[in-house]
């Protein structure tokens, strides 16, 4: 009897088994990588999405404070302006081409940040003036300064097309270089956001 080396037959099958195992592990790694990729895609971005529904000075202010603060912290920011919030974005008021009710709405709503009232104790604009005076005396940035900062920091500003249509507001009446979109453009950003707010 000789204590022979393992027969070639066995050696080959051991190699085969190893190759089989490597192949299986490679398959598992590929599947895990694909799953990781999927999980990564579903994770929220470092984004804040805010719906600005109100056209009140005291509600638009926090929207822009959060927007500029978040942008400063390195977050992406999207602001969606709808309904009364659209007044914030107005740069002028065009009456030509508007229907009767649209004209009334246009005349009864403020144009731009400077015309905004406060949600309580407005007293035909006196309340807003008082709030602005208080903010100025305490060296708090004005809404106009915050808007300027938000623009400089690349905050995404989207006007709601449907509200614009309802109220008869045209894109020409709104700030330059803003986007127009619908619910899907808000939801697209909101699903990728860590923070969503409605103001």
């Amino acid at each position, binding site marked *: 009897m000789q204590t022979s080396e393992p027969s070639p037959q066995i050696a080959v099958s051991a190699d085969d088994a190893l190759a089989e195992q490597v192949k299986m592990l490679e398959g598992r790694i590929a599947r895990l990588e694909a799953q990781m990729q999927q999980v990564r895609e579903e994770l929220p971005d470092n984004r804040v999405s805010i719906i600005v529904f109100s056209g009140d000075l005291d509600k638009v202010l926090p929207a822009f404070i959060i927007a500029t*603060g978040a*942008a*400063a*912290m*390195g977050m992406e920011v999207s602001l969606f302006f709808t309904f009364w919030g659209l007044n914030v974005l107005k740069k002028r008021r065009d009456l030509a081409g508007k229907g009767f009710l649209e004209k009334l709405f246009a005349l009864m709503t403020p144009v731009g940040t400077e015309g905004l009232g406060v949600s309580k104790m407005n007293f035909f604009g006196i309340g807003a003036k008082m709030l602005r005076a208080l903010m100025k005396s305490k*060296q*708090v940035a004005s809404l106009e300064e915050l808007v300027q900062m938000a623009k400089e*920091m690349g905050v995404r500003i989207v006007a709601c097309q449907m509200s614009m249509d309802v109220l008869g507001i045209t894109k020409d009446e709104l700030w330059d270089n803003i986007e127009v979109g619908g619910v899907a453009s808000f939801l697209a950003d909101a699903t990728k956001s860590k923070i969503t707010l409605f103001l």
Partner: protein
Amino acid sequence: MAMPFDKELDVRGAKCPVPVVKARQAVNELQVGQVLRVLATDPGSVNDFKGWAQVAKIVELVAQETETMDGQTVYVHYVKRIG
């Protein structure tokens, strides 16, 4: 305690969110590794700078001090650009 810094930002008098916003803009001008010294009078800025450094990937809060300058309490923040 004087710490070395490369640039200074004076936001004394400014209120939330201006100190953080201006600091962020100033940090953008820095090279990685450089330090910004921020002078603020807003007491809220102490926590705001901590929160900023926690969230933002590009900054590290190196130190915070409270000093009295011209009879005013000044919160001094040292922020380093790390990314």
